[in-house]
């Protein structure tokens, strides 16, 4: 009993702040490395800091997105309900890393390549969207992400109604698929990274599909309640 009391206290007091700091740590680390780089000090960004930044932000956004998708299955498996309190902040963190990822691409690639012209930057963006499949997918994914983050507040859940809100937020799954393909088309050759992330996503999707199928009313089944 003592153990579960501790677990309850952890869920009530510590879970949300610890999650918050865990989620901002990658951004703080990146900022720290950049301050080292720009002041001529030590940093871990390597010989192509801009490329390192893109990869780091993209990886972080995708991994946090996958973690957010794992939270409901985690609840179902462990029956530990407090975990649901962090689902929104995890999902929002994925969105903010996607924003940083996009901002770095716009500012450090396109803006510089266009000799610091904003118009040139957007022209470059349009070019990339039209010509490069991984950019096309990245932008589509980002556009899907915007309404999800805008409707993440309680007031929006109330305004939309739980059913509509739920349906809208199912688009996080196609978003995950698009994000993995964005990654897969970006890398050269047949690399392991996209397959690993794709495998994790597939497992999460399979779990979701199975639990929906299990809980949907079927004619033959009587009152078996799935969660």
């Amino acid at each position: 009993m003592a153990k579960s009391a501790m677990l309850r206290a952890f869920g009530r007091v510590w879970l949300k702040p610890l999650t918050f700091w865990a989620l901002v740590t990658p951004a703080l680390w990146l900022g720290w490395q950049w301050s080292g780089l720009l002041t001529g000090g030590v940093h871990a960004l390597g010989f192509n800091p801009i490329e390192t930044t893109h990869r780091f932000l993209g990886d972080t956004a995708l991994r946090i997105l996958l973690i957010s998708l794992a939270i409901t299955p985690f609840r179902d498996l462990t029956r530990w309900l407090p975990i649901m309190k962090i689902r929104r902040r995890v999902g929002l963190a994925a969105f903010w890393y996607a924003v940083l990822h996009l901002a770095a691409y716009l500012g450090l690639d396109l803006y510089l390549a266009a000799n610091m012209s904003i118009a040139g930057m957007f022209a470059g963006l349009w070019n990339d969207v039209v010509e490069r499949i991984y950019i096309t997918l990245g932008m589509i994914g980002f556009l899907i992400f915007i309404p999800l983050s805008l409707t993440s507040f309680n007031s929006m859940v109330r305004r939309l109604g739980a059913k509509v809100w739920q349906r809208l937020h199912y688009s996080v799954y196609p978003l995950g698929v698009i994000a993995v393909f964005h990654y897969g088309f970006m890398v050269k050759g047949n690399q392991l990274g996209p397959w690993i992330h794709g495998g994790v996503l597939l497992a999460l999707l399979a779990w979701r599909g199975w639990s929906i199928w299990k809980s949907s009313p079927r004619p033959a089944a009587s009152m078996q309640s799935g969660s």
Partner: protein
Amino acid sequence: MITRKPFNWQLPDHEITPKNRFMNRREIMRAGGALGVLGLAGCGVGESAAAHTELPDVAGMGYRETSYTVDDPSTPLEAVTGYNNFYEFGTSKSDPARYAHAMSTDPWFIEVEGHAAQTGRYALADMIDYSALEERVYRLRCVEAWSMVIPWVGVPLADVLRQFEPTEDARYVQFISNSNPAEMRGVRSRVLDWPYKEGLRMDEAMNELAFLAVGLYGETLPNQNGAPIRLVVPWKYGYKSAKSIVKIKFVSEEPVTSWKQSAPREYGFYSNVNPNRSHPRWSQASERVIGGGVFARRETDMFNGYSEQVAHMYDGMDLIENH
């Protein structure tokens, strides 16, 4: 003019052993030692060319400077040896520096096959004239839209290929890289169809700029840069410059090249640096300058700035079609 009587301990100039001959002597003695061990073990069959299988040290051999230089400063050595695409050791840029030391490069043999009068298996030291090394500073343009400036040490590719007396049927030459899963951890996963293959049209291979490097920055080539011998084709994207070459094949048809095989829509056989042909992954109009400051960029030049030497080879060719 100042003249002075030599000290009595000074050798007359004609008796001084040239540095490279002196270094060579040490090589021969070391090779002799190896032979001795073989003899003691009681196996008479060793490599018959044992005296030439050890690789000379480039720093000891010396090299001459050439007029092949680039106006921009050379990329710092740490970046040249710390930021590499050499997927045989892993796909991260820092993997080659971390893992390439596991590859043994001495002794090194190269198989020469196909349409040539002289074919067979050659020890590297027999194939390359280490007394004729020269330095060439070339810009290296990676297809990923970044570039470096690297002082290579080596010999013109044409001089090496001519030794094999290629026949008229030799219209292309293919280069095959080392692929040893025991020492090259990257080839254990199928990122590409190993071994790595590259190729050039014969006139490209005989062009004055095509180069075989055995060193950089005056030193023996580090493993992560393609030791002990690699191609340097400065007017083409970096992946055309095959590393750690173990086979040279003279062929009559356009040979298989690894990246074209992997993604034909993206990578062509020619792969000439061309700012006008937008690659499906990267715009090629400009490039990041590695080691040139965080935000350093430059406009990409046609043929990477080597039009004068190479453009004539592609007269009348559509370089977008034949990318």
